[in-house]
Every structure is written in C-alpha cells, then in structure tokens.
C-alpha cells in the first residue's frame, strides 16, 4: 500500500517534469525561430522557462528520491550489510527531510509575502515560481518518509 503511494507519487512527478521539459524546450526553440523568422521573440519566454525549471527541479527531486538518483558518496552505504542498506539509505536521505521542512515553512512564508510582486517581463505573480519550494519541499519530505516503509525503486537497489 505505502509502496504503491511512493511509486505513484514519484511517477506522477516524473510525468509532470517530462511535460515541463518538453514545454520549456519548445519555448526555447520558439525564441530563436521567432527572432529570425518573425523579427520578434516572446518577451516573457525567458522568465517562463526559468520559473518552469524551478518547478522541474522540485518535482524532479521527488522522482530522484524514489530512484535514489540524487548524487551521493556511496562509500559508507557499501560497507553496511545488504539487508540494512535500505534503511541506511533512508536515514541518509532523512537529513534531506530536515532540510525540506525548512523549505516548506520558510518557502511558504516567502511565497506568501510575494503575493503582490510580479515578474518584470511576464507580469507573472512571483508567488507561482516561489510556491514550487514549499510544495516541492513537502513532496520530497513525504517521499523520503515513505521510503522508510516502502524502500526505493527496484532499479535503485541494483546500484548498491
């Protein structure tokens, strides 16, 4: 049950990330095409791409937790007996969980205090990009917590 939730959360985040990257690539290509073939590029293009990448970073990090793909030095992990490795990894990731809590609390404050601020070129309220931090931080936290019960993806076990 819990492992299904962990998997479902990671997969959903991964799908959103993939769609985001496709969108960002299209905007980027349209910048060049627009400038050379239509003499004008989207003034909001760069900002939208930057903001999408912030969301991609946070949501992609959820998927990377599930797949244990965040870069780490594996020395200690390899010394631990295979059957405890999963929990050892959860423990190491839990340091990240503490970090995520800070992202959630202070990120929320930052997002809220920027409700009225708008981005220079696109006019997007800054609360949208900033919201990625508490939301993403919260999801990463949940994914790490779930890993204590559900472990990591099967492919990640092959790496240890």
């Amino acid at each position, binding site marked *: 049950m819990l492992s299904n939730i962990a998997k479902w959360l990671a997969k959903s985040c*991964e*799908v959103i*990330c*993939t769609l*985001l*990257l*496709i969108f*960002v*690539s299209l905007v*980027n*290509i349209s*910048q*060049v095409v627009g400038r*050379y073939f239509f003499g004008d590029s989207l003034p909001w293009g*760069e900002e939208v*791409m*930057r*903001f999408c*990448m*912030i969301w*991609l*970073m*946070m*949501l*992609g*990090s959820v*998927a*990377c937790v599930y*797949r244990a*793909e*965040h*870069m*780490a*030095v*594996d*020395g*200690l*992990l390899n010394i631990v007996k295979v059957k405890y490795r999963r929990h*050892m990894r959860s423990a*190491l*990731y839990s*340091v*990240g969980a*503490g*970090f995520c809590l*800070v*992202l959630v609390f*202070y*990120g929320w*404050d*930052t997002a809220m205090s920027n409700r009225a601020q708008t981005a220079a070129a696109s006019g997007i309220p800054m609360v949208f*990009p*900033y919201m990625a*931090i508490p939301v993403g931080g919260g999801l990463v936290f949940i994914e790490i917590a779930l890993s204590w019960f559900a472990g990591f993806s099967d492919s990640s076990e092959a790496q240890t």
Partner: protein
Amino acid sequence: MLIVAILGLGLILIGVPIAFALGVGGMAGIWLTGLPLQVSITRFFAGVDSFVFLAVPFYILAAEIMNRSGITTRLIRLASFFTGRFHGGTAYANVGSSVLFAGISGSAVADTSALGKFFINEMPREGYSKEYTGAVTVASAIIGPIIPPSGLAIIMAAVTGISVIDLFVAGVVPGLLIGGACLAIIFLHGRHGGLPKPKVEIAKKEIPLLVVEALLVALLPIVIVGGMIVGAFTATEGGGIAVAIASILGVFVFKELNLAGFWAAVSSAARMSASIYLLVACAAILSYALNLLGISNLVSSMAPMFESQPWLFLLSVMLLMLVLGMFLDIGAAIVIFAPLLMPLGDTLGIDPIQTSIIIILTLAVGLITPPVGVVLFIMMRIGEMKMLPLLKQLFPFLIAELLAILLLVFFPALSTWLPEFFR
C-alpha cells in the same frame, strides 16, 4: 566558518545526498551570520533562477535524444573507416568516436554508455582483452565534457560569470590534446604489432551514405558552436537548437527515434536536470553564507603562498581537483570550489579561462579514478569486469592525460588562444 565547512563536508562523506548536505551546511552558515533563515529561501531560488544555467537541461536532453537515435553507430563506422588499416585500428577508432561524440554530447557518462556497449562487444572479438577495451573506452570518454558542448563548462560559467562561449571554444584544443594522449599510448602498445588489426568491414558502396550521414552529424556541433561564435544565438538557445536538430535527425533521417524513446529521453533528462539544479540551488545557500562569513578574505590571504608564480597555483589547483575528483561528484566540486579559487587566480594574473579549463580537465580525469569514478563504475557494469585489472590497463592512459594537463598548466595559450581568436 570552519564549522559550516566541516558540517557540509562531513555530511557528504557519510553519504548524505550531496545537495542536502550542502543545503544543511548552508543554512547553518546563514544562521551563524545572524541573518534570518528566511534568506536561504531567496538564495536557493536565486541560485538556479538564471538564464545561463537554463542551458543545462537542453544539452543533457540533446545527448539523451542522440543516444537513442542511432547517431552513435554512424560515428563509430565513420571512425573505423579511417583507422581500418592499422594495428590497433579499432582502439584508435574508439578514441576517434569519442572525439566525434564529444562534439554532440556534453558528458562522459553519455559517451561511455553510448559507445561502451559497442566496443566491449567488438574489441574482445578481435583479440583485445576486455580490460584493455575498457581502459581505452573510459580514457577517451572523458573528452566528452571537454570538447564543446560541455555540461561542466555551463556549470562553470554559471557560477563564475565567465562567458559560456569562451569556455566552449577554449575546450577544443585541450580536448584534442587528451585525445592525442590516448592515441599516443595506443600507438606505443601497437607499434610492433602488439595490437590486433580490425575486423570491422566497411563495403565500398557503403561509403557515400556513410559520408553523407557523417556530415549530417557533424553539422550539429558546427551549427551550435558556430552559431554562438557569430552571435546568432546564446548558449542557452544553442541548447534548444541542439535538441531540435537531434530530434529531427533521429526521427526523419536515421528513423530510429520513436515516441517511446523520445519520452524516455526527456524523462531521464528531466530527472538528471532536477538533481543538478537542486545541487546548485543548495550550493548557492552555502556559498552565500561562506561569502558573508568572510571566506574570500581567507582565500585571498593565501595568495602570497604562491609567490606570484602562476604555475605553482595552477599545480595546486590541479592536485586539489585530483583529490576532490576522487571523492566528489565533479559538478558539485565545480559549484563549491570554482568561485573560491577563481578570484585567487585573478590576483595572480592568470586568465580565468585557463584556470577553468584546468579545473574541468582535472575533474574529468576524476571520473576515471578510484574510489569514486562514475565513468569507471559504468564501464565495470557494462563490461562485467573488476576494478583492479581495469585500473592496471588504464594506468598508462591516466599518466598520459595528466601530462597533457601539465602542458596546459605551463602553456596558457593552449587554452586561451582560441577563445581570444574568436572574440
């Protein structure tokens, strides 16, 4: 300040994901400066909210797409076409493929996984040992992030403010130099018939198609790097164009890229980008705190140690990076250390481009040194081989590559002349 550094490094060494370790260390640092912790959110955001850094996902994606679109096999056949007559021909072709592949991919990992599988099947059939094959493959794979485009160069540019284009152009000569070092070692092994002759057959009638396809593939780096040099587009936009060209080649020309392959490429590039982004965002908190705590004073107080001898400084940088590269992810090493080292180099009158190239090259070598060498690990997995025998074959290549880097330390023009020429 020391506490912060030790906390961050300690967490990294016990195996906490590097991004989180940097973030926790950074927050501790912010707290020490007396600023509210809230500030770390602004830094976390600002660390990656950058146009330069936006280039990263596009080059990763372009390489992922190319890996799945049949470009690799074309490159290998092209390289074999030139080296087919010589003893050790396929080993030369291995290096040659890496140089060509480096022109379209920004990472050594992509190179190893794309080319490694082919050569680990082919070369032992011709009579090479598995370990020798592995050694040639990984030794030349590190050219990937040196010859443009280069993921490491983008990260370097984002954290130091040097122009991406300058760093791209500056990597061409050093990349060829590393390739030359590998070729020289193979030549030494094979000059008295010590290495087998190739068995890859390329029929005469195949040649025209081969040339056309090769030109199409070669088009990619020429369009991208050339376009940046003449100012047609920025490095970030160049990444978008690389994605577009790679997709078009894969779908319409080589017809090997289908929807599932495309989705897998984007998805894997998205995850890779996310983890790099997170790393840089967290490192931004740490370096912000270290700056406020006065690390730049500490670093600049070290300047007299080098007695205004640039080579002494660069040599120390090389040693430091060699050690870091043995343990740390090399992107992380750049993010943490390049902004600290660069001003020191400046005060000694060293062109920041030279310092950057030395850092990038030495760290790239770190990809194939134990105990933590990502490319080494991938090769061991692909080739099902043990580390020690592989290292034994790799050793002469490593020495040759380090000698090549030494050349760059003592002859600044090798890295700075080309970017100046195009400026």
